């Protein structure tokens, strides 16, 4: 024989509290993940900004060091130092020449390429950072994912 039955009020409370807690936990987990990802993005962005500034500073410093070095080895400075060390320019009659058949003069100095060449820029960023989800799926579908 069936018997009347009713849940105890505390049980309703427990259930509703659990449901709410579940939602909250879900939100907290999602929020946490979102926050973690965003904080990583933010810190990466901040690091990028810092690195950009540092790069600019290093480029400036490098330029100044190059200029300082060039001034130190300028012909005037070298001549002065050579004179100080007791050297003097050689005269034609003081030089012994030896003819070498087939000797070829080297091609000479070649200047370095500018710092921001296209090749360097392309090599800076991995395609993983620019590939969209669709591109990744299509690449995965055709078996190109290694």
């Amino acid at each position: 024989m069936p018997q009347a039955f009713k849940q105890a009020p505390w049980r309703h409370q427990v259930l509703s509290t659990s449901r709410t807690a579940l939602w909250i936990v879900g939100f907290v987990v999602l929020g946490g993940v979102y926050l973690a990802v965003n904080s990583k993005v933010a810190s990466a962005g901040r690091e990028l900004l810092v690195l950009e500034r540092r790069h600019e500073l290093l480029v400036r410093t490098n330029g100044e060091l190059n200029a300082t070095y060039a001034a130190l080895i300028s012909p005037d400075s070298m001549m002065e130092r050579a004179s100080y060390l007791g050297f003097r320019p050689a005269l034609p009659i003081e030089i012994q020449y030896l003819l070498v058949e087939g000797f070829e003069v080297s091609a000479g100095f070649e200047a370095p390429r500018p710092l921001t060449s296209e090749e360097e820029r392309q090599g800076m960023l991995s395609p993983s950072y620019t590939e969209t989800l669709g591109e990744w799926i299509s690449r995965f579908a055709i078996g190109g994912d290694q």
Partner: protein
Amino acid sequence: MRLWKSKLAQDEQSRPNSETAPADEPLKKRAARPTGPLVATNKIGATSFRGVDPPSPTSSGTTNPVSRSRIRVVTLGMGVITVGLLIQLIRVQFGPYAPVFAARGDVGSSRLERVIPARGLIYDRDGRLLAANATSYVLEVETRQLTAASRAAIPEVLSKVLLLPLGDLHDQLNRDWVSQNQFRIRLTRSDQAGDPLPINVDKYVAAVLNEFLADPYAPDLSGLSLVPNPKRVYPNGELAGHVLGFVNQENEGYFGVEGYYDEWLSGKPITISRPMIPPEAHAQPNPPAGVNLVLTLDMDIQQMVEYELTSAIKSSGSVSGEIIVMDPRNGEILALAAYPSLNPNEYEPWLVQEDGLEPVITPAVGAMFEPGSTFKVITMASALDAGVVEPDSEFLDTGEIEVGGNLIRNWDGEAWGPQTMLGCMEHSLNVCLAWVASEKLGASTLYSYLNAFGIGRLTGTDLSGEIAGQLRTPRHPDWTESDLGTNSFGQGVSMTPVQLMTAVAAVANDGVMVQPHIVRQIVGPSGAYSPKTIVLGRPVTPETAHTLSEMLATSLEGETAYASLAGYRLAGKTGTAQIPGDFGYDPRWTIASFIGWGPVDDPQFLVLVRLDKPETSPWGSVVAAPVFQKVVRRLVVFLEIPPDAVTG
């Protein structure tokens, strides 16, 4: 679950029996019970779940002091944080920097920036840096951050550190910039012409000012900031200054290589949107960089040539001068010195000349002169090539000749009697060359040859500011027959030193005239490019060139022995030119010059020495030829050219 059940069972057993509800009691009544264990039964009547009230600190009627103190601490902490946030919000909204924050907010999450690529570097042929990039700092003021104290302190500090007029700085800072919507200004100073220029300070001064800004006990410099700015520097100072030109504060190149290759060197500035919120930061595109240049200059030769030029200027009392060294085979300019020298690091004085004349930078291409007797090389080459004279053709020099009604005399006013063409060149006889031009060549043939030598036309050299020179031909309305006579020995015709070098190089280089150039290699992002030698023409045959070279080598060994060098066979010609003015030729001053090349059998260098208004002697053979000798003595060492006896 079992453990929980057994725990509940224990709890149940530990409670008094009166608390246990009977199974047959109405459910409604049982539900009304406020506290105590509740029991739900199923149809079987067995107990399935039991609920137990959690132990509560309040249920027992007592207070937990630990928990309450914790709550107070947490509440206090949160309160402090909240108050801090409120204070910060009020400060941002209403504080002294509120306009700055507001302006920044108006801009949005990013700001547009113009990114200027690093200017290309310039090297000499051995890789020594001639033009580099450094940093200067411009002084900017955020006008909304100025305080009463900083309005007074900034001019005071800057005037003392930078030795600038206090009043001018004070005026700049105390204008009502904000009402003019000027929130950021650049402090300026006046140049020599009175025009405002941004104040640029080097890194050392910037470090001092930064220390002032960071020191809380230093004068209040609120609002002042130092903004890095690219600056061109020339590590060798005055060395090759006229070749390089200079770059102004707006990063624009003028004169010389900087001017000619300005667009190549400066790259292409771009405008980027730089995010100010870190999560939106991303890698910014780099602007296309300027190319690097390798010049044909050899800095050792350049330094030697500048030293010899300065010495010659001082010893001869000249006011100015030039020495140019070129490889006649390919047109490469190995050295180009001009006096007064130009320091590209401090170019401003050059722009304001005392006499009000326009400044001439890189005079080798930007200033013309009447070459005088060095031009006879071209006249004689024309005559030999046309076949109207031979080296031993005879001429009776009477000391004067009339051409077009104009009486022409020799440099010494004397009659040299019977002469061959060799003697005419050796003694530099004006009368003889005027005779060759007027009686042998004729106007049509002579000017045709001069045209072939490129006289009166641009050479197309890669130095900024080249001018074409002046040559009146018979087609010119002002041309008269007397021009034919004077032009034959280099008067009445104006040309640049590089133009003269180019024409004479054709004689040294088997009759092949090549374009002079200063850049040997251009290196860009996509690779290196080396300009090829450009042949401008073949004005004379190789035979004519050899013949004239031999004539000039012989004459140099005789009359102009001051220019010869033991062990090396050289060819050359002196020049002494009168200087034209508004009222005819200057009776006192001359331009003394010498142009020569060597070794004659295999010419590897061509040297032009030019001294303006020498005091010690007006003659090129006296003041310019010895300079040529000194230069060549060192030049053969630098170029590793063995004596003729070694090469056979």
